[in-house]
């Protein structure tokens, strides 16, 4: 995989994510599509195993750094890990099933993005709920797991829409990414 192209595309995707946040926010309830999850799903669909996992971690850490969490004291905290681990588990999930997928179909990216987003959000909610129980120290976050689960589940479904639109660009850019993987497929020839 060409990491330089990946970095440029990720940079643009983060720009889209932040710029479209207030526009695409559904009712200001925290429901908004992700631009990063479709990119991560696309890369993991095609990239070699190890590179795919590292790409997911890098995107997750960047997402963590750009997502301050409100604290009960009125401040905010930057937690590195929840998004990264969520994306990593999502990447594992995609790697496990990608052999059975028709990867060139945009709908595959849509479905995979929704599923990956759900997995990532569940991991994130579990980690933050765990640390907010108080076992991890003082200064609890302003965090309601049930409300977050509700909003982030809808966000995951909403992410399907962004994945559908972004898939056009991703598939067009696929040669530039320089994916060279030999993934055994169940229904087709092995992709080289």
């Amino acid at each position, binding site marked *: 995989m060409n990491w330089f192209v990946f970095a440029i595309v990720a*940079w*643009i995707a*983060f*720009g*889209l994510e*932040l*710029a*479209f946040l207030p*526009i695409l926010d559904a009712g200001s309830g925290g429901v908004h599509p992700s631009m990063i999850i479709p990119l991560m799903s696309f890369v993991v669909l095609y990239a070699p195993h*190890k590179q795919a*996992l*590292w790409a997911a*971690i890098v995107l997750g850490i*960047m997402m963590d*750094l*750009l997502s*301050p969490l409100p*604290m*009960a*004291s*009125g401040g905010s*905290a*930057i*937690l*590195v*890990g*929840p998004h*990264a*681990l969520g994306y*990593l588990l999502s990447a594992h999930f995609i790697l496990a099933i990608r052999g059975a997928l028709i990867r060139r179909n945009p709908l595959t990216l849509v479905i995979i993005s929704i599923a990956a987003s759900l997995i990532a959000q569940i991991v994130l909610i579990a*980690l933050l709920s*765990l*640390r907010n129980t108080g076992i*991890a*120290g*003082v*200064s*609890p*976050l*302003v965090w*309601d*797991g049930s409300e977050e689960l509700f909003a982030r589940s809808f966000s995951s479904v909403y992410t399907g829409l962004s994945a559908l639109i972004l898939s056009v660009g991703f598939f067009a850019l696929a040669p530039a990414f320089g994916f060279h993987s030999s993934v055994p497929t169940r229904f087709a020839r092995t992709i080289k």
Partner: protein
Amino acid sequence: MPITIVVLFVLALSPIQWLGWTGWFSAQARVIISPIAHPMTIAIDTVIPPPIADPQATDRERTIRNELERVRTSLLVTQAENDRLNILIDQFTRGAQITPNLNVRQVHRPRISSLSGDMLVVRTGDIPGLAQGTVVVADAVQLLGKVSRVDKRTSIVQLITAKSAQRILATVLLDDEGARQVPCLLAPVGDGTLIGEIPRAIDDQSDEFSIESQPYGGLVGRPVRLLDNQWPAHAQMLMIGTIERVERNDAQPLRQKIIVRPTIPDLRRVPEVIFRLPADSSSSDQATSTRGNP
């Protein structure tokens, strides 16, 4: 890869005060993303302009309207502050009258937010004498709960209605003079009420229990006040609530259940709370105690 995963787990669950250094990396990440996010935001705002009030108005009309709104806002803020101070003076006066023989300092502070588990986060600042266990009230006499944790800027108050709160010994006032009282042990239910048991009167030993003929007569609406040695002396007889309903107790026919609801319908949403502190804890906080700004 395994080391990375372990490090991420540790970072995700580390106490926040250990993660101050992440702010620097976050700032660098924003520096990297801003050159693409900002032009995109400008482009999106150009294509989809943010909604403005009255787009037909001229710039001069908008300026005059903004000035008018500014003056109106200032007036309303002054009026609201005036009303708030009047209420506060009244509450302090009534609160001090509860226990005139006990010198109690009252410090009011705004609530920041509510947490799950019926906890209030109150911006306290550095109040001398404020510690875990400090009694917290609202509306001068309504018992809210106790301080469960204090840090430099905030305190967390556990409400008496929190399911995890301790049981409270209380007394039900059966008449307005307080001559007839019935003690009861109240336990939080978790839905904003407390439940307790009181004995049925000796003169009502009929086999059939009926709430209408219940012995104490008109229990519903009777006030229930704190009378518990586990609480400080200055907190005794603070209002816990009023009896919302009476239920039969199948397990113990000689006792009946009372459900008590605080006089404030939802304790989690009080805008301000009052800390009742022993006056000897400090005498230097008198000025800040009425200002409300930590």
